[in-house]
């Protein structure tokens, strides 16, 4: 049966996934059986009892016993399914006491994460494998939803409130995050990644932002491109000159760009830094003031990479 689960469900990435998939597959087979139990008689009767002139049909008005049976049996089945679903859901609703807390701030159209040690990041979430992690979530604007299909978790993120969701990841690697509550133009671009790694790698990441970047020391533009994807810059800025929600990065380095305040400014490192921290300070003409701030969410070497990337796109 595993092949069917693999066809219908995403890879199993958390301790929830097995249980959810089991319930799902059980309901799937139950539905197949019940569906055939309805469709087969419907089609069979249509053929077996097809019209013949002069035939008289039996005048059978009702059968109370049958009504009771086919009301009570499905009801009992439903009660069983309800409790089975409840069991899984109760696990999902109550995080273990020792779960590590990570704060998620959702905003149009980007994810910001803050770890217990105060370090912050955007777009890409790091978690240690086989340890429960609990997310305390709020939104800066409209309702969003943190959905990680591989982990089988989802919960709305509401402005003015905190909501929670948790999971224990079991599989190393990266897993998709998608926003699952319609939030406007960039809803389908509001993606993220969960990187599940060993505890050592995770601690390393928290301390230094990871060692991955060292491999790119001679090619910071490539590292910058990776940040462009991971932080979520790519949901609004293109690299190839095509139009999107924010200005393209192609060809802007070292140029004078006209802003909505009527003045033109040089695109240099200082300008890019200001755009990262105070995006509303200058708005490029022809665009809307919709960029959220990334203050504290981009590490120094990541910033270097982004600058290198933009320089390389002249």
């Amino acid at each position, binding site marked *: 049966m595993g092949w069917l689960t693999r066809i219908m469900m995403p890879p199993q990435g958390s301790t929830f996934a097995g249980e959810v998939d089991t319930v799902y597959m059980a309901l799937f087979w139950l539905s197949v059986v019940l569906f055939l139990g309805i469709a087969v008689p419907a089609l069979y009767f249509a053929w077996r009892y097809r019209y013949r002139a002069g035939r008289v049909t039996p005048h059978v008005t009702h059968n109370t016993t049958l009504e009771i049976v086919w009301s009570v049996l*499905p009801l009992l089945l439903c009660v069983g399914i309800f409790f089975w679903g409840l069991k899984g*859901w109760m696990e999902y609703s109550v995080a273990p006491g020792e779960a590590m807390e990570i704060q998620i701030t959702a905003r149009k159209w980007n994810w910001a994460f803050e770890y217990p040690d105060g370090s912050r990041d955007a777009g890409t979430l790091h978690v240690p494998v086989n340890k429960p992690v609990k997310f305390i979530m709020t939104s800066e604007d409209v309702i969003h939803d943190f959905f990680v299909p591989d982990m089988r978790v989802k919960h709305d993120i509401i402005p003015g409130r905190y909501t929670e969701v948790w999971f224990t990841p079991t599989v190393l690697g990266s897993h998709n995050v998608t926003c699952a509550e319609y939030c406007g133009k960039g809803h389908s671009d509001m993606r993220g990644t969960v990187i599940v790694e060993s505890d050592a790698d995770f601690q390393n990441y928290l301390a230094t932002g990871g060692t991955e970047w060292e491999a790119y020391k001679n090619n910071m533009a490539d590292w910058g491109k990776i940040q462009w994807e991971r932080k979520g810059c790519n949901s609004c800025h293109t690299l190839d000159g095509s139009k999107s929600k924010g200005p393209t990065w192609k060809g802007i380095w070292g140029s004078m760009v006209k802003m909505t305040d009527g003045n033109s400014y040089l695109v240099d490192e200082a300008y890019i830094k200001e755009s990262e921290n105070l995006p509303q300070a200058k708005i490029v003409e022809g665009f809307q003031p919709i960029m959220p701030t990334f203050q504290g969410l981009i590490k120094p070497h990541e910033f270097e990479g982004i600058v290198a990337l933009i320089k390389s796109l002249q």
Partner: protein
Amino acid sequence: MEYQVLTMGAKTGSLPRPRKNYLNESHGFMSWAGTLDHKRIGIMYLVGVLTAFLLGGMFALLIRLTLLTPTHTLFGSKTPLITAEQYNRVFTLHGAIMVFLFIIPAIPASLGNFVLPLMLGAKDVAFPRLNLASFYLWVTGAAMAILAMVLGAVDTGWTFYTPYSTTTDGPVTLMTAAVFVLGFSSIFTGLNFIATTHKLRAPGMGWFDMPLFIWGIYSTGLIQVLATPVLGITLVLLMLERGFGIGIFDPRIGGDPVLFQHFFWFYSHPAVYIMILPGMAIISELIPTFSHKTIFGYRAIAYSSVSLALVSFIVWGHHMFVAGQSQLATVVFSALTFLVAIPSGVKVFNWLGTMYQGNISLETPMCYAISFLILFAIGGLTGIFLGTLSTDVHLTDTYFVVAHFHYVMMGGTVTAFLGGLHYWWPKMTGRMPSETWGRTACVLYTVGFNMTFLTQFFLGSKGMPRRYYNYLDQFQPLHAFSTVGSWVIGLSLFMTLAYLLASLRKPMDAPDNPWGGTTLEWQCSSPPIMHNFEEQPVVERDPYDYRPVKGT
């Protein structure tokens, strides 16, 4: 086909065709625009809702075309068919038009208006002027919605969740006002039908002598009257929040966004039963008629209609399992949701019990009835996945939900609507449409429907969220298949429109009772005279009585 067994129920004898009927009784624009005849009002509604269906359908085809490729481009073009902002408006309009302009009014206001008084042996509905007012409210709401479209349309989704809807640009207030007006159209229709059912039944027709179609429309009316006002006030609150910043839904000004969802779904869940109950009501007519056998479990079906109407009011939180409502509420709503599944199942089993040992003729209406059984079964069964808490967490807000509700709303209600349309077409127009085209279109429709929406269950379970313009490449094959399916549906529906319109050019020669039905509408001429019956019918038998008369 001539039904040779002359049953006590199904008189198919031929009365002379009256020269004047409700269509040619009077002429001119005002004789229609100012009519108080429920049949003419039904026809006007029919034209209106079918136009809305066409418009909503065009938006659906556009959605599917946009999702054909991840880049939204066609034929090697570099520019996307539509932008993300336009896409958000298109899916909002598709939903809003289909829900408020088409599905909610369609069966009750078009077919129901035409048939209900006939089935009751009455000359009209209880309040003919209110009926006309309902129609004009529908027209007004439609005009306001179209104006909102012209003024740039809204991108909130048909569910108008706050604070997005209180803060986004666009004619949101106008659109919600349109829905408010349409809500009153629905309330007055329901009110009219409830009063008609209580007071205008023919002599001899007790509650349990009524056709089951009436039970279904009556139960629908109960929901229309009790639930729609709550939507009305919710929309007023939304409009006032946009205009006056009253701070009930937007947290920045002291409100609670989840409160909006509670108010909204308190109406909108019962609303989906406003949509399906009339469809089930039609199936309860089609199956005994085309099986030439009495309905199995009359009272069970009647009671299940009313219990669906009542239980529908206490399950709204199942739309909000991950929305931030309390855990207790979530558990309670899940449990109650399973309860509401039972009456629907009871109906399906009784319909199958009717077909068993029947004498089944497969004309177009019956083809749609069988299609309904198949499609509604899938829709209803997939509801179980969503009512089950642990699976709902994964599946909610994904394409699984989109597939589920299209199976019940379109695979259920629209299929039944098409069946009813073909069933009562001879009565309404005096013509028989082509059976060959009808059955072909039905099969094409059923195949296309499954192509389009069965795939979407898999898209959802694999993690594709709904209302998504951009999607991961891995989902493209399923999306493409779904899009091709939408073309097959579109083809079948255009075919249906074409041959139905073509039938209007045939001579008006349909028999009074082409299908051998036993309910009262088949005892008047096709089409009926202005006052429906030459003489007041008096009822002395059960409905759906197919026992033969003595001596034949």
